């Protein structure tokens, strides 16, 4: 019997965008408010997990064609890479740099290299969580 879960699918289509927005908000808020790379990544991956549960894995893998192991590796590379920037600028390992920039629309914003590190953390979390979920859901 084919289950007709049209309500679940319709709700998910809307809710996923709310979750994704919340994830980005949490990620960017991390510097001055509760949030940051880890929790942002976790919320982001919960959106992916919801999609995998509601639709089937093949459909989503077609829609989001990433190898999530490599996403995790890319994140780790970004995080370690910000450390290695220290060798280029001749400062102690993992020193952060920040500056104030006038962006159009946003006004004056503080941009720091910690954000790149946190982006790495978020990508690692997303990659690891989705890899775990996909691996244990596979038939052996």
């Amino acid at each position, binding site marked *: 019997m084919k289950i007709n879960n049209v309500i679940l699918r319709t709700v998910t289509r809307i809710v996923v965008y709310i979750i994704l927005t919340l994830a980005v908000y949490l990620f960017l808020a991390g510097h001055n408010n509760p949030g940051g790379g880890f929790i942002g990544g976790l919320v982001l991956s919960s959106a992916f997990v919801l999609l995998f549960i509601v639709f089937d894995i093949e459909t989503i893998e077609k829609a989001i064609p990433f190898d999530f192991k490599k996403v995790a*590796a890319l994140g780790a*590379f970004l995080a*370690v890479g910000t450390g290695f920037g*220290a*060798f280029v600028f*001749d400062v*102690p390992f993992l020193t952060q740099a920040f500056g104030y920039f006038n962006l159009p629309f946003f006004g004056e914003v503080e941009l720091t290299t910690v954000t790149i590190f946190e982006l790495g953390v978020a990508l690692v979390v997303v990659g690891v969580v989705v890899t775990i979920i996909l691996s244990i859901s596979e038939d052996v």
Partner: protein
Amino acid sequence: MNNLLVLPMALPVLAGIILIFFRNQIKLQRGISLGVSFANIGIAIYLLNRIQEEGILRLDFGGWEPPFGILFVADSFSVILVLITSIVAAICLLYAFSSIGKSHEKMLFYSFVNFLIAGVNGSFLTGDLFNLYVNFEVMLLASYVLIALGGKKIQLRESIKYVVINVLSSWFFLIAIAYLYGSVGTLNMAHISERIAESGQTPLLTGISMVFLTVFALKSGLLLYFWLPGSYSVPPTAVAALFGALLTKVGIYAIIRVFTLFFYHDPDFTHTIIGILAGVSLIGGSIGAVAYKDIRQIVSYNVVIGVGFILIGLSVGTQAALEGSIYYLMHDMIVKALLFLLAGTMIKVAGSASMDEMSGLIRNYPLFGWLFFIVMISLAGMPPLSGFIGKVLIGQGTVETGSYVLLALAFLSSIVVLYSLLRIFLNCFWGETMISFEDEVPMKMGWLIPCVLLSAATIGLGLGTEVFAPYVSDAANTLLNPQIYIDAILYDK
């Protein structure tokens, strides 16, 4: 700027991450891994010589001065260990190239070896207690994967035991750190040491030191070694050699560091207990080493004997004894790697791990047989080889302080080591050969060359004791005088 200090940990991490992207290019994986190990050897040698001239080096991450930030500290003791780790890692990688097999290599084997080395090097170099915990976890997570990789039934069984026991001991480690942080209010190692010296080592702090001792004893197989023989006999040979050479040594390093830097005010209690534990693990390891006919079990129990022997030096705690411990630690890392590689190769060519089922191997593989002879006399402590000087110095230390029981146990255990390996040598290498020349497994050069290199290293370490003497005595001196360490971290602006 001492950014060089972070490279022994950061380079393997970076290499491990990059290798994930090149999962199927095996040649590239091998090249990068080996290159990183060689780079680390070079860095360690350079740092050793700089420490001789400039004293202890430190790197404050992010420019935060101690005690507020995390830092890496390079004193002679840690850099000697980093050097030996890199040498052993390079040689074990060489062995892995021709033995580990394609299926392992494609499952990110080299990435995890790199992460393991990063964790080990980070543990040796860090100057922050919680960072030590994190590095332990980096090392342990990689070792969980390496022990289970391959997915044989026995590997899964032993890896469950290994993971459970290590999760438990890591949890104890966290609790011990929490207690200590609650008592002294800092996590920087030099600052902890200073705070403890100011307040005196109260009974509470001595109690905390016992929690630390339990944790590190579980990690290093000091008395609490029940998990060790099983776990170390299931992974592939190259991995077992890395484990036997490196993992328990990190626990030993942590015990030595903690009990020379923090808890050195009440040695009558703490160091006596370490001495008792070391003595009992010598006895237990000796019984295990003569009790089994499975080569892997005998070799694993030899690791336990080595741990007990090194910690006798700490328990005695004189300059000579600590120097002996450091020499023996260096020797033990090299020789245990060699012993595991030889045992694994024997099992591969004979098709069985039982002593009863092989004999006369020296007829088929003469060079291989004599390599085993070298490792045997080196472990027993024959003079031209590397085990000798460590044993003599530890013996001298025990005589100086009148700990004759430990002296007797230490030297009796040497005889047991010799006996247990001589039994393998006589049963497996001598006698009528059981492999005809037609169906013998050809000895690959890739198996033999790493063993030859390690044998050369043990001979070199034995003959070149004079070369290492200034570094080792500097290391022992720093361990005995924590004030040197504290001054270099907290008061050297």
